[in-house]
């Protein structure tokens, strides 16, 4: 005996069409945010990595990851903060993995490539010290410092983006700057 199932092609097509329409709407909505938030992702990554190529890779990965999970983001108004956290986390992971890779390369080959000419030209000695000092900051302080330093970001906006009280943002910014000053005082000519 066979149990027959009545296939209704019209209904399946309707469902498929609805899914495609939803996908298209999702894509449009994401595209609108992409133009606005793409630079933000890049700058967050660049602020952590201090390297343009790596920052571009990380920003791209963060944006793609955000797109894949965009459907799950209930409050779309929080997209910026969400993207910033994704990017920051990816950038931190990239720094850690590159440090591990550096250690491995140093162990196996003493002739590891140095910084490129572009990097050398772009980074002054003080900037290099500053970058290193920033790497040693606690992550939560570093993120606030970067976001607050970006053009057009007030402390209130940073607080809203990260879902923190303004007082907490101020406090983190204060400690970040103070720690940087302590580390860089001896390098200041």
């Amino acid at each position, binding site marked *: *005996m*066979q*149990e*027959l199932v009545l296939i209704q092609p019209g209904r399946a097509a309707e469902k498929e069409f609805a899914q495609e329409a939803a*996908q298209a709407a*999702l*894509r449009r909505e*994401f*595209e609108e945010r*992409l*133009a606005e938030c*793409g*630079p933000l992702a*890049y*700058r967050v990554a*660049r*602020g952590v990595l*201090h390297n*343009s190529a790596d*920052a*571009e890779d990380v*920003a*791209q990965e963060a*944006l*793609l990851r955000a*797109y*894949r999970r*965009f*459907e*799950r983001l209930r409050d779309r108004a929080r997209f910026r903060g969400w993207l910033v956290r994704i990017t920051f986390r990816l950038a931190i992971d990239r720094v850690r993995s590159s440090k591990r890779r550096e250690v491995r390369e140093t162990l196996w080959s003493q002739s590891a490539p140095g910084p490129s000419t572009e990097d050398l030209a772009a980074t002054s000695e*003080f*900037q290099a010290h*500053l*970058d290193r000092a*920033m790497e040693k900051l606690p992550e939560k302080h570093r993120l606030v*410092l*970067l*976001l607050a*330093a*970006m*053009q057009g970001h007030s402390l209130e906006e940073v607080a809203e983006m990260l879902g923190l009280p303004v007082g907490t943002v*101020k406090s983190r910014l*204060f400690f970040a*700057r*103070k720690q*940087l*000053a302590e580390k*860089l*005082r001896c390098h*200041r000519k």
Partner: protein
Amino acid sequence: MPSKMKTCEDYRTALTNATAAAAEPSLELRSHLDACASCRAAFTEELQLFAAIDTGVRSAANAEVPASLLPRVRVQLNERPVLRHSWVLAGAAMAAAVALVAVIVFVRGFGGDTIPTNPQVISAARNVPPTRIQPAPPAVAPYETAGLARKHRQIRAAKTAPIVAAAVAEVAVLVPAGQKQAMDALLAGVRQGQVRADVLLAENSEKTLEDLQVSPLDVSPIEMKPLEDVGAKSPASQNEKARR
């Protein structure tokens, strides 16, 4: 208790804190700066240090965005479609697994039912008294019901009766040679409404099953021979002898 006199070190700490907070120095601090040249110089240095830090952080945080970023992302978006939720994928995988199991159960369950060779059922059909036989309900198809052995299949058969009835006309049933006559009689009875299919399969037919008797197995004694004798008669050993 008199307040402790503040030293230049205390003022410099306060200066650093004020500068780090990007706040204006307090009135007390400003009056000390007016009076103390070394603290004034230190304050100037602190201001320069924080200005340099701010400049460096701003340059790191406001790097020019490469023009290739967004086109690259768009290309990737086109190449990689949005993945559905992981639970949706898991659900789809589970549904596929369930469907596979259902197909296996279906094939196994109905593969054996197409040949109603159970002599007990046939025997039970013969033993049903005519007075108890009622016309079969039209919803159940005769061939189908004759092959069913379990109760849940009867229910399923009743639900899908029209489909089964339509398909039954072309069904061929294989029956062991010795049981063909009995099967013909049974099916004729079912067709004419003299035999009710569900009565055949009812659980109370177990009583009639008791009437069936099976003769005990007769196992003939096994002849035991030594291995050497067996080996001597085997073709391989004869070939070996021939070679010698």
